[in-house]
């Protein structure tokens, strides 16, 4: 996974609260194999009318925001289902960082597993960023090492769990790390079978 250290990129406002996973990617698109790319499904029903034509409802589709890699939204971003496809849609579209006052827990875990930074800021700072972007600001700098966002006046603090930060900074994949502990896991399972003889499915 590509490490996330410092990103200087075009940012786009998404001035909505509770942008849930059903909006990030409607369920009907999830039959698609990942190899085909999920970027075109991002926020589909908000961006396209029932006739499949762009509705122009979101700043994401304004020419000036083309190529944005940073999204700024309101609270409770990514609430809802565990579908990692919501993260695939963002990542395949080109988004590397979402800034919001809060994220759904499962979404945030999925994001970190795919190198996407869920950057938590205060509600006031999110409003300040939205205001600046809507007033014409284009670029932001997200510095994960320094845990701050630059480019909109005073630097803005990012709140992030230190474990998630380390994982993103290094581009670590949990699975590779855990596979090296196979013996430890086997020993635990064996001792546990004695401690909890009832825990295995009985059939």
């Amino acid at each position: 996974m590509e490490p996330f250290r410092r990103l200087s990129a075009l940012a786009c406002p998404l001035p909505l609260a509770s942008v849930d996973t059903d909006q990030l990617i409607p369920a009907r698109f999830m039959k698609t194999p990942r190899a085909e790319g999920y970027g075109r499904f991002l926020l589909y029903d908000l961006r396209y009318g029932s006739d499949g034509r762009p509705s122009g409802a979101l700043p994401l589709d304004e020419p000036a925001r083309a190529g944005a890699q940073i999204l700024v939204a309101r609270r409770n971003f990514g609430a809802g289902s565990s579908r990692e496809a919501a993260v695939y849609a963002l990542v395949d579209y080109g988004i590397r960082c979402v800034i919001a006052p809060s994220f759904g827990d499962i979404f945030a875990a999925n994001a970190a597993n795919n190198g996407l930074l869920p950057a938590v800021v205060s509600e006031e700072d999110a409003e300040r960023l939205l205001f600046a972007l809507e007033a014409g600001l284009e670029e932001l700098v997200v510095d994960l090492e320094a845990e701050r966002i630059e480019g909109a006046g005073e630097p803005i603090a990012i709140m992030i769990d230190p474990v998630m930060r380390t994982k993103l900074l290094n581009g670590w994949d949990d699975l590779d790390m855990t596979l090296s502990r196979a013996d430890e896991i086997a020993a635990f399972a064996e001792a546990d079978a004695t401690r909890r003889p009832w825990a295995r499915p009985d059939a």
Partner: protein
Amino acid sequence: MPDPSPSNPHGAPRTLFEKVWDQHVVTTRDDGPSLLYIDRHLVHEGSHHAFAKLREKGLPVSRPDLTFGVADHYVPTRGRGGAIADEGIARMVGQLADNTATHGIRLFGLDDPRQGIVHVVGPEQGLTLPGLTMVCGDSHTSTHGAFGAFAFGIGASDVAHVLATQTLWQKKPRRMRICFEGKLMPGVGAKDMALAWIARLGADGARGHAIEYAGSAVRALSMEGRLTLCNLSIEGGGRLGMIAPDATTIGYLEGRPFAPKGETFARAAEDWLALASDADAAFDREFVIAANEIAPVVTWGTSPEDALPITGETPDPDRIADPGRAAHAREALAYMGLEPGRKLTEIAVDRVFIGSCTNSRIEDLRAAAAILAGRKARVPGLVSPGSSLVKRQAEEEGLDRIFVEAGLEWVASGCSMCVGMNGDIVASGERCASTTNRNFKGRQGPGARTHLMSPAMVAAAAIEGRLADARPLLEGRI
């Protein structure tokens, strides 16, 4: 008595959650997270990304004996037994059968008499037990916490991790307890309790917390009610919700196909009862809700926190001080086609849905049938039981006839109109009274408008053709 164990050397008071957590820690890293052993892993059609990742890395499934497959998200609810007409849906259901067969995983597939929604099948089959860690690539895995299991939803990368290692890295969440004290009014149930706390704390109110539900009103709930309450934990932002095992839990589990038997069951029951939070255990946040003050609740907007007693009216965004919240209310009302200050009981509905992992168990069907018996629905609707076994039991009790005679459609089991993946959708602009868990925009289909409520309240909406208080319709019937 707190037990002094290696993971709890000083015997400090612990919560239910902490006791289960401590029993599953394989190792803890210096920087905080613990590697947890996973007792049960449930997979469904949506798990195809994770199986693809295993293939890519050339890894086997570590413990197929602890992994179970259930076909639910995409299964058709009509024309079962024949071939699936939709090519994409047939591929999803077929892929699950192939992946589970390749890795030697037991599957409750499309034609299995035990097939159903994964969170209904787990408890029904005794795969769900107190004290277990359980995961599934579905956010409503919190449902299984009703038994005192530590159960939570995970994304595809983590599903692949569990398939390959039977473990998962997790940071210990903070502890929250929600106590419901007192007695619920007749016609009020677990769904109303859940929507009431989510309306109070917000859809992200329990973010980062393990919830324990306690209090006399929780202890009085049946297993079905407890499953509904824990199911909705995620809608309040909590990844998991748990209830301490008691006589109700043990009574439900005895004799279930995959549950322990004989002496092992007796030993298990003893261990399970010891899981309850110690009397002086500490919680990071605690709330008490008076059960007798809860009225039947319905949602008016596009987030489960947009919930009010049926006696209320839609909010006025101009009177909400917080700009973000006011913007959300304005937008939600526009999507729902509602204006501020509208009495909830004046909102006409176009159809109803009874089903989903939230409210499709036998008790839910009985509650809806109690209101529908001998009456006619003014709007069309679908009733999809939570499992093929629930369907059979309901038919034995004659509930199917009540639904059909009222004018509703009685179909096979699956996730169905809760998420619309199998083609059971609400048309754009239509308003649906639904026993499901999410009123998100487009959840039940593009442009669909969802109002969440209990099975009794959906039945009342069907009869009145508008959102309605179920209580008067229950008079003389319960």
